[in-house]
């Protein structure tokens, strides 16, 4: 399950076996649906590739508190986008806040958004969201253009794609993409993607049940030694589980961005007295 999907292969949607979610069983195109019961779903989510998503139905009018199994699922799959389907009118605003606090990536408002095409839009917008969320929080001072490129690279890394896939994501060729990266103060697309793969792998390795071998393959490396070599080249240190941590690696990525383009630094402020007004 944990192997990165080759280009063009549908992503996986782990769907809870529930009557309310039946319409989504017939998703076509980008997602391959696996309908599972709670236990099997949690087990599958633990080892699912980072391109997968989970949709469950754990929030009903009679049960204003989320199903305890939802919390269990969120703990089992912190790197997967988990979507919860429910009736917004029943759950009301406190329900939305509760889900957001729990770490749910998005929700599906069942009475209104009950067709698969609407869900597809939601799934696309939440693709690799937990990883992108960590990146966004860790990169507070880079330009919006650079952030868009980093987000694109993070999404492609979650799919195990190459720099050609990244160029395809933006609808341009690799040469144009290189120019964009240079102007946005980012390393070359290949290096940017390598960084995202390593960062994603380090984020996945925070989950103790994932092995280095499986994680390396999940982010697109052929085996763990290729992953270790790529990581060592970027971070100047030998990689092992938890060393370096995701945060340390992200700090190294930030440092590299500053070296590539320090233009976002504010210019020296002019000395200015308080004055009268």
């Amino acid at each position, binding site marked *: 399950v944990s192997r990165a999907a080759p280009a063009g292969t549908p992503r996986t949607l782990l769907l809870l076996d529930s009557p309310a979610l039946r319409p989504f069983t017939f998703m076509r195109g980008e997602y391959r649906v696996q309908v599972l019961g709670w236990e099997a779903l949690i087990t599958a989510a633990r080892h699912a590739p980072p391109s997968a998503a989970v949709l469950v139905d754990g929030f009903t009018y009679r049960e204003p508190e989320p199903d305890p199994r939802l919390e269990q699922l969120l703990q089992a799959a912190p790197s997967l986008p988990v979507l919860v389907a429910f009736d917004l009118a029943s759950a*009301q605003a406190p329900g939305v806040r509760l889900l957001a606090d729990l770490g749910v990536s998005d929700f599906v408002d069942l009475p209104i958004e*009950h067709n698969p*095409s609407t869900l597809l*839009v939601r799934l696309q917008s939440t693709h690799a969201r937990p990883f992108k969320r960590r990146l966004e929080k860790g990169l*507070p001072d880079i330009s919006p253009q650079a952030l*868009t490129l980093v987000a694109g690279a993070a999404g492609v890394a979650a799919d195990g794609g190459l720099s050609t896939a990244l160029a395809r994501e933006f609808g341009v060729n690799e040469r144009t993409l290189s120019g964009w990266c240079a102007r946005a103060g980012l390393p070359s697309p290949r290096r940017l993607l390598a960084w995202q793969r390593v960062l994603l792998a380090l984020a996945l390795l925070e989950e103790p049940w994932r092995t280095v071998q499986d994680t390396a393959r999940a982010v697109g490396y052929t085996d763990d030694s290729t992953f270790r070599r790529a990581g060592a080249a970027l971070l100047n240190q030998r990689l092992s589980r938890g060393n370096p941590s995701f945060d340390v690696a992200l700090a190294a990525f930030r440092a590299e961005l500053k070296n590539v383009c320090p233009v976002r630094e504010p210019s020296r402020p002019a000395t200015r007295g308080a004055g009268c*007004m």
Partner: protein
Amino acid sequence: MKGRPRASQAALPRAPLDLPHSCGFRHAELEDAVLAAELPPPCSVAVIRAYRLVVAWARSPDAWTAPGQTTLFGWERRAWQSSDNEMPVWAPLATIASELGNPATADAQWLALACTALSRWAQGLGAGGTAALFAEAAAFACPADPWFACAAGDLHGRQGRPREAERWLRRASKVAVWTRNWDAQAAALGRLGTLAREAECHGDAEKLLLSALRVAKRAGLRQRLPAIWRDLFLLADASGNLEEAERCAREALNAGGPDNPGLPALAREMASIWVRHAYFARALRVLRALLRHLATPRDRLNAAACSARAAGAVGDEQAFRQAWDEAWFLAGSLGVRLRTEDALALALGALDLDLASEASKALGAVVASAAGHSEEALAHQVQAALVRPQTKEREALRRSAGIRAQHPGDVLADRLAQALEKRADAPGCTGSLAA
């Protein structure tokens, strides 16, 4: 049957970095949770649904499938009930329901206007996050209209989110170029320049503001020029270039004339700069004309204190007395708090005229207002207030030599004062409160 053309489908350039739709980077928080946290419970569900529907439709208008008329009208009916029949909420919700009920003929402009109305309603409630999200939803719904993106950027800027503001303003600028909307382009570039200036990126700010100026001049947008020149003036001041600041202020005055609504602010800032650089005669000329244009007692007190200081420095005791009385009237009768720098300005003016009792009173106010300030902050204010004597002497020398009117700075001061005096005829202007 062919439906109405959608404005959202107007051909836009392939620029995924500046026009991010599907790959937009906003993942730190679940937007719906922001709405849920800020909105009052009765109508929050209806408003959250409206937001989700518009954004889902805007992401892919062609692939989007309507939930069905019955569902939408049921939602609309519940929205009417839950919004407590409050028209500012219900009217935009009804518009969204009726437009999205039939996606084939949905009009992006109407959807965007409905979102803008909800954004304004949220601003009125003090729900800043909701207001920003609906402003963005408007820009998403009608991506070919740069004004919606500009409004989203402007709102983010005012709410202290420069990165989001920059993203939306850049998008507005690109769309404006593509749709040949020069007014929106000048506005977006000008606002980007202001953001860069506020972030102290002076080089970027200058480039952006000069671009805005070029666009505004080329398109004959005279109404945009004063604001852009004012930003360039503030930029020159921040860089410590007095001559350039004076030149930009002159251009702003030329472009806007006496009726420019930004004139009092420009005059106030210019006078402040002259006080800092010890050009007291110029500052006094402008401040005396300015006083009647300041609306708030706080601003009037500040201007009066500055006038007193400038009057003391140039030896004009009558002007000092007038400003002194005005300042103490405001501080005493109207209860406006006398800040340290104002009290210090009054004290320095009195000391320049050797008025010991006034100086003593003002210094007492300095001590009283400085309580609670750190020593460092106080020292900084005193240092800023003390003027280089050689500068003062130089001005006195120039005044005595009778060349005052020939210097461009003095000419500017006269022109600013004259423009303000012309404005003084406008209804609603009042004279000195203390008089």
